[in-house]
């Protein structure tokens, strides 16, 4: 598809708009609570927060059907929650509890909720890309109309396996959506040391033969509209697509803190992106459009805080798996 001409500034249906705002605010609050509680030392695993990147996950999750499939990356909390994954099971997993979505085997980087088609996130950059393509191959062979969504970051586009998998998806016209969140950094390495000047990621994808589109990853309406159009084409059998959304990770690559002071990016850059906070922008937009009042947003926040508080309590109160369980499930 070509650069869209759709009018994305129009507010979506109020029910959908509410759902998008709710999901973004929910993801934001979950992540901020993780950051706040992380120093307690009870979440004992590497944890990559999605604060600042909520719009893509919320919008894509709203576009996909419950029976559509998705795979994710090391930074997958938002993707998992957006797709409808259980919050309780995710937090319990981060706490290493037996009630976790992977029974404490995987932690923050290995999330799964089969009830909603979230087939798994993995911790090696690029690792889940061909797996998502294989899910699409199975869907095609079985004759379902499911779409497989492969979440990637800008770093994964430098892995050879991306090109291999994307090429195969093009050859077989597989129902895959490659969903790229470009947050400018691979850990602490900026795009400037990883790609030549003037090159675009979606341009690389287009050269492989993928239909592409790109847009503002901090504008949840825009992400929704573009993704919905793309997923519709993929579901109709028009072949795989690649969507690149520009966004920004607010906190450190891994862990709960801010790290603008360590020298790999500037405070000014961070503050500029923070001005474009996807949650705040959408709240303002919906209030201005009369979809919400400030008071209505406060009510939403209370609902979110109750759910999140309950989920943390569930995670903390759940038992650890017994040590002997470490020896189970090596083989099926």
């Amino acid at each position, binding site marked *: 598809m070509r650069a869209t001409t759709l009018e994305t500034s129009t507010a979506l249906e109020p029910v959908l708009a509410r759902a998008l705002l709710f999901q973004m605010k929910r993801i934001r609050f979950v992540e901020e609570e993780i950051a706040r509680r992380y120093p307690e030392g009870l979440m004992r695993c590497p944890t990559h927060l999605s604060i600042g990147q909520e719009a893509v996950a919320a919008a894509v999750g709203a576009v996909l059907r419950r029976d559509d499939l998705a795979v994710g990356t090391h930074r997958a909390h938002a993707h998992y929650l957006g797709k409808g994954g259980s919050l309780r099971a995710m937090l319990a997993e981060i706490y290493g509890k037996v009630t976790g979505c992977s029974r404490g*085997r995987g932690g923050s980087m290995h999330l799964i909720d*089969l009830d909603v088609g979230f087939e*798994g996130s993995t911790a090696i950059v690029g690792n889940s890309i061909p797996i998502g393509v294989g899910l699409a191959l199975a869907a095609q062979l079985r004759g379902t109309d499911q779409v497989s969504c492969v979440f990637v970051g800008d770093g994964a586009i430098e892995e050879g396996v991306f090109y291999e998998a994307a090429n*195969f998806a093009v050859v077989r016209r597989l129902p895959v959506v490659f969903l790229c969140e470009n947050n400018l950094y691979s850990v602490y390495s900026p795009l400037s040391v990883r790609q030549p000047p003037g090159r675009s990621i979606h341009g690389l994808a287009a050269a492989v033969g993928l239909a592409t589109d790109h847009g503002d990853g901090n504008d949840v309406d825009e992400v929704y509209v573009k993704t919905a159009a793309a997923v519709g084409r993929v579901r109709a059998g028009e072949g795989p697509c690649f969507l690149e959304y520009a966004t920004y990770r607010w906190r450190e690559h891994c862990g709960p803190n801010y790290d603008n002071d360590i020298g790999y990016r500037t405070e000014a850059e961070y503050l500029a992106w923070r001005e474009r906070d996807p949650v705040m922008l959408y709240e303002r937009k919906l209030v201005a459009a009369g979809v919400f009042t400030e008071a209505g947003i406060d009510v939403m926040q209370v609902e979110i805080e109750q759910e999140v508080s309950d989920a943390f309590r569930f995670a903390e109160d759940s038992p650890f798996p017994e040590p002997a369980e470490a020896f189970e499930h*090596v083989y099926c």
Partner: protein
Amino acid sequence: MTVSGEPRVPRTLTYAEAVNDALHVAMASDPSVICYGLGVDDPKTIFGTTKGLQTRFGDQRVFDMPTAEAAMTGVAIGAALGGMRPVMVHQRLDFFLLAMDQLVNGAAKWHYMFGGQRSVPITIRLILGRGWGQGPTHSQSLHAWFAHIPGLKVVMPTNPEDAKGLLLASIFDPNPVLFLEHRWLHNTMGSVPEGDYRIPLGKARQLREGDAVTIVSMSYMTVEALHAVDHLRQSDVHCDLLDLRTVSPLDWDAVFASVRRTGRLLVLDTAAETGSIAGEIAARAAIECWTLLKSAPQRIAMPDIPEPTSFGLTRGLHPRAEHIVAAVAALVGKQIGVDELVARRTVPHDVPGDWFKGPF
């Protein structure tokens, strides 16, 4: 295990034909089995092993692929999660090394790291090269690498009957299985039953019985061992010969039971010596059977060097029956000649027989 009620009439097939037969049986009995790899539908059909599959089952289930070993392994994982049973093939194990992230971090871990919710029933056929200048990167036996990774199964059949029964068991196993076919075995002949029969993974096969020395072997080394054991019998030295058939899981019960009976162990391996399965077997036998051992366990494997290409450089490089005879003779304290054994070999050292004319 016999799954179907079809008659199991034995016929004489080559190892390659037995592999092909297994693929036909698996694909006919289960529409979720798919088969792909570079060259599966080309005129040579992977040494004949994928012959007729695409014609019979169609190009959706049997297909050639991009030269993309890593992604296509991940595709197999994803397809398996989506309900398929992929069978991949690589014409040399060495080509598959491009896919280690998908194998080790993906296939091997998926069942475990997601709490046992999903399994990855994929079979990856890998062909081991030897001789005819296969050289440093077309001849590696890396089964010990694979066996080192929890979550993988590693199968190394020696004869046509086992190749078919173990391949069927591998395809219908819920776990990722690496199925290693030695190129020097593809033309060996043997009796192969018809229909669907599955040989349990993790069970060794006793090929010869004796109380002098336990010889544990796998894949092509078992062929050399059979020549050696039959030669030794002429000197009234009778060996137990265990063909492992699978190296993960490994049939420790069979190994220990034999070693306890004979008190002497010789392990053969197609791989380089250090860090080998042979080393693991020698170590565990020493630990488990120490007081019953009459001598230190021995092993014969490849030297710790890459395999060179030149006909000249490979002279005497690979362990053969005469080396096995010499090792057994030393274990039992006898002088046993090997001239007759060596003289019987009429083909050059770098081919398995007259049938092999290269190129690979």
